[in-house]
């Protein structure tokens, strides 16, 4: 039943035996100890579990392990490089763009995918892209501002 599945996780190659039908979220959180990716709804409805798979935002709670074989995955833990916060992380801190913080990793990862493909999004594009990520505390206004601000600070190389 188990298979060896290999992929890149936050820049490092990993390979291990796992039931290929398990959802990535639980493997990240329990097998790999990366708890920054959160469980919120289990059905891809809230976005708390958002990670980047080959440059695209995916809901890890509904993404089976077999679908990530050979892919490159980035989680919230992979955004900080050499102790330096990613511009999005910095902007979220500087704008107080969070309250309880539980949805924050998913928010940042989804915003990250937006900026990968649309480095200078309009406010409307941000809202459209982020609409499926739920925040119960109501940090929305500041999240939008933080993403706008981060977009201005991301070096072109991204």
């Amino acid at each position, binding site marked *: 039943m188990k298979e060896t599945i290999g992929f890149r996780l936050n820049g490092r190659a990993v390979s291990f035996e796992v039931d290929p039908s398990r959802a990535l979220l639980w493997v990240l959180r329990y097998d790999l100890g990366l708890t920054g990716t959160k469980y919120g*709804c289990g059905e891809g409805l809230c976005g708390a579990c958002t990670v980047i798979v080959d440059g695209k935002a995916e809901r890890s709670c509904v993404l089976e392990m077999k679908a990530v074989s050979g892919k490159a995955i980035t989680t919230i833990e992979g955004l900080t490089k050499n102790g330096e916060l990613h511009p*999005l992380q910095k902007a*979220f801190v500087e704008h107080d763009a*969070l309250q309880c913080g539980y949805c924050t990793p998913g928010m940042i990862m989804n915003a990250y995918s937006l900026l990968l493909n649309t480095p200078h999004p309009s406010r409307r594009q*941000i809202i459209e892209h982020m609409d499926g*990520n739920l925040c119960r505390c109501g940090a929305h206004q500041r*999240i939008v501002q933080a993403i706008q601000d981060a977009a201005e600070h991301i070096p072109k190389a991204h």
Partner: protein
Amino acid sequence: MKNESTTQNGVDEDILRLDFSEVKQASPGLPVDRRRFLQLLGGGIIVCFSIPDSWALQEGERRRGMGQPLPQDFNAFLRIGEDGRVSGFTGKVEYGQGIITSMAQILAEELDVPLDSVDMVMGDTDLCPWDMGTFGTMSTRFFGPALRAAAAEAKAALIALAAEQLQVPKERLRTKGGAVYEEAGPKRVSYAEIAKGQKILRHVKGAAPKPQSEDTLIGKNALRRDGPAKVTGQAKYAGDIREAGLLHARILRPPVHGAKLIHADTSGAREVEGAQIVEEGDLIAVLHPYPDMAERALAKIKSQYDRPAASVDDKTIFDYLLKVAPQGQTVAQGGNLAEGRSAARYVLEQMYLNSYVSHAPIETHSALAKMDGNKLTLWASTQTPFALQDQVASLLGIAGQNVRVITPYIGGAFGGKSNNQQALEAVRLAKLTGKPVQVVWTRAEEFFYDTFRPAAVVKIQAGVTESGLISLWDYGVYFAGERGAPQFYNIPNHRTVSYGSGWMPAPGSHPFATGPWRAPGNNTNTFARESHIDMLAAKVGMDPVEFRLKNLNDVRMHRVLQAVAKKFGWSPARAPSKRGYGVACGTDAGTYVAHMAEVAVDKNTGSVRVKRVVCAQEMGLCVNPEGARLQMEGAITMGLGYALSEEVRFKGGEILHSNFDTYTIPHFSWLPQIETEILDAKDSPFQGGGEPPIICMGAVIANAVFDGSGARLLQLPMTPERIKAALSKLQSS
């Protein structure tokens, strides 16, 4: 290692041993080196003072059924490390409201230390002073002054000790940057050098906090101190805690509230590799090292339940509530209602309805319980860690001292994380299996076991004179509770009666559990009152702001109304003006708020677009204005939900929502332009900030919908169907 409670040299070894490590984050906001500090220094030393000093006293209070007083010894509130960093201790918890920052500001202000040298240790029953729970917007109002007083005494004690050490009279000593120094002299000693990481034994009675005019941190914006941990995924929530040998539990649940289990066949679940089944009385659970595998095994259990017949649903609930309502309690009255009625030119009578609303935090209820001999450590998403400690002690039949509740960061609560059901489930399973057990509710469990904001009814009869003075106010609220019920207008003849408690009503009042929901009762009461006030204004043809001001004597309410009108750019008009402008005001937790909104109503679809919301708030002395604005924005955004879409649909004990697809909370695309203003009130004590700015959201939108479309909505949420119904009723009349 089995551990009996052994005491050596006054240090409880068990408690020392139970100290935290990096993976088991002890408390929000505590950096790793701080955790080590507490570990090395000894949770034991801290325990030594906090337990013997206060435990006996608190136990006495507890037996009397009262809350426990805060400790007299300032050491229970703070500790200065050898590195000069300050740990602040509070039984309050952080679920987003930002007290992790504002409490650090209060401590840093009074101690004269840099803000970034203060770390808050929160909601840890071994380390923090007893607290009844984080709710009711009480943290800053009631704990804030105590924390400040403790810091004032600590500073006075440090100065007294420095005077002796430096051989300088204390009158010539000043404090700054975590040190005591000689004014106009070279002598200086740091707090760290004085305290040496130990409890400060010197006490200075009557040390007064410094005058407000000298404040440099309180009243100034400070960024959230938990920001960096939360943007990197490092912040730990109860579901993120790991222990060796951890099992994850999934529990068999009834399909509807009140259902009785007839039969369960667990044989299929037992075939899942690694699954362990626990069956004890009403509890059937599957445990597995992986939660998703536990879920798979649970799905293989075949169960049969006896379902009670559904007698009430989300449509018939209001008639039912009126039928079962107990005798009312008069909570405010004055004058003579008959006189008010005869003085009135118009008398308006109306009934307002509110549906059940879910808390729906994004973090579901989570807990991890670990038993060691007769001791238990519990990490839980809870608003009431000390009450949970009692609950666990009573469940296990052990002393409270043997239960340590640690509250990591909480992923939203809003009143819904006060019952601790999930934590008690984890405790029960940890005891039964002898292993550490984690319970993280699924979203379906979260919707099923949520203690909903109660459905409620408000009936108002009010009269207004020809000249626009309110002469009569006869108000009855059913099952929302009295918070926010008494009106604050200048009405000579009035009565306010509350029928049935807001969230702890007699059994059978509701088909499932209800509980406090952000500003309990006040959302319902403010919706009804402010809608009715608007209708009175319309009846006499007055601008709704002008009408309110004319009927208000309260200076603070005048001030917030005028401030919001100015910021919004309100120009007087009789409603409905077609502009889609609304106003509402209220008080909660000692704070005054006034909101204005601009909406657009789509008459074809019945949908409402809230374009702009402006809020003015007077909250006494505000510790962290940026943090308070964040709460205001959050409350406004969250409040769009109960105003427009949020409603628990149910049939008897069956909850018809299991996820966010059918229970819709606000999305980014709903976001209005939000503007906030905090009025200067530096000379007043701290008031509330977390709940007040949500209370007007139903009324301000209802009044804006009326102004824009002429349709008066009497039920929350104002769904497109209800708006269309109100519009067609308008056309037919």
